[in-house]
């Protein structure tokens, strides 16, 4: 019953949410609205759980003096300090000038942006070391990539500006995006939609149970 009842609940709620899409009557729309409100609140608790779990795992690492434990201590101190500061700052914690906003603007924001910026270097390195054209299909991929990369920025037209307009890089790039790329992306979109619908049906029918976790 530890698995069957939650599965039954998923099926009932899933079917009800599907029904509420088609039935505008308040007997369907009010409970559906309530369920959406429940989902918003439970997801928020999920974020808190994620943070709490990060704290637990790293505290354990510090206590057991695991590899890199001084850095785990930095993580734990940063986490606890951010939470304490945020709670002390109160309901207006996001106002300009609060300590919480200092932590967000001068620590979180630049570090997150920089983590992503590292990818620019790796994509360049991978382009040289890993992008191999060994088949006709890979050649097509490479050709499309080169045209789009150069055509989307001013350098493409700077190189091909002497050609008639319909065959300049930017025009070719726009044609690729509007015709062949669009057709394939639409096919992928439609295929994925059918996949999502099938998966949804599997979840509602209880065939898909991996989200429950556990072994019992």
């Amino acid at each position, binding site marked *: 019953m530890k698995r069957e009842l939650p599965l039954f609940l998923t099926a009932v709620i899933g079917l009800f949410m599907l029904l509420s899409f088609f039935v505008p009557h308040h007997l369907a729309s009010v409970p559906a609205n309530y369920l959406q409100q429940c989902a918003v609140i*439970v997801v928020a608790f999920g974020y808190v759980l994620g943070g709490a779990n990060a704290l637990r795992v790293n505290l354990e690492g510090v206590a057991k003096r695991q590899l890199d434990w001084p850095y785990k201590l930095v993580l734990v101190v940063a986490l606890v300090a951010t939470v304490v500061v945020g709670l002390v700052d109160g309901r207006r914690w996001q106002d300009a000038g609060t300590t919480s906003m200092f932590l967000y603007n001068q620590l979180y924001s630049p570090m*997150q942006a920089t983590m*992503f910026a590292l990818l620019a270097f790796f994509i360049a390195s991978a382009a040289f070391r890993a992008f191999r054209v060994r088949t006709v299909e890979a050649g097509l991929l490479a050709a499309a990539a080169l045209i789009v990369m150069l055509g989307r920025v001013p350098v493409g037209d700077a190189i091909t500006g002497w050609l008639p307009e319909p065959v300049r890089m930017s025009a070719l790039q726009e044609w*690729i995006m509007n015709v062949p790329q669009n057709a394939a992306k639409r096919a992928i*979109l439609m295929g994925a939609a059918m996949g999502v619908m099938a998966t949804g049906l599997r979840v509602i029918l209880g065939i898909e149970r991996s989200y429950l976790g556990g072994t019992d």
Partner: protein
Amino acid sequence: MNMSQEFGVWVAALLTLFIFSFLYKDNPLYKFAEHLFVGVSAGYYIVLNFWTVVVPNLYDPLVRTFTGRDPMSGEAVAQAGGPFAASLGDYRGWLLLPGILGVLLFSRMIPRIEWLSRWSLAVIIGTYVGIKTTGFAQADLVAQVQGSLVPLWTGAWGSSLNAILFTVGLITSLLFFFYSREHKGTLGVLARTGIVFLMVSFGAGYGYTVMARLSLLIGRFQFLLEDWLGIR
């Protein structure tokens, strides 16, 4: 050069350089910044969800319902019908249920009682299955099929050729994903044609991804040059 005098900008710039130092090799400065980032992120997510969802969507309505007073101003609040007289958007005492489900999620941290969290997951999964299935069906299937039903002859040779090519590309790409039959004979030819369009689309995607990644680097350099060093 007019370097910034603000302490916060220097902190941000130094942390930026600590992370960029990884490009030379992994080092203690990068590791420090990485762990600091994870700690601050996790703490920030906790605080954000507490003040933007748990308090306004759960705590405040429950306080109003069961004490009859607004938790911010302390003024009396009229609540006709009682604590469980819900209406659209005003669920009063019924919000105890998502509160309990939210707390039950934490049972995942204790192996002996982690099965309790399945109730919370059941509500989330059931709700999102309903929302996502209808959303995908309407916008990604029905509307896309509708958008594909365009006239093949538009009156001009150029756009007609594009329309035909688009339709051929769409059908052959869809056929490539049909795995119920082996890709031999006519189906094989059509599927291989579909691969051509798919490869072009992956190449275009790669080109756009390169643009995205480089933009992020440009953004960081703009910060270092303008906000920190005061150049430009």
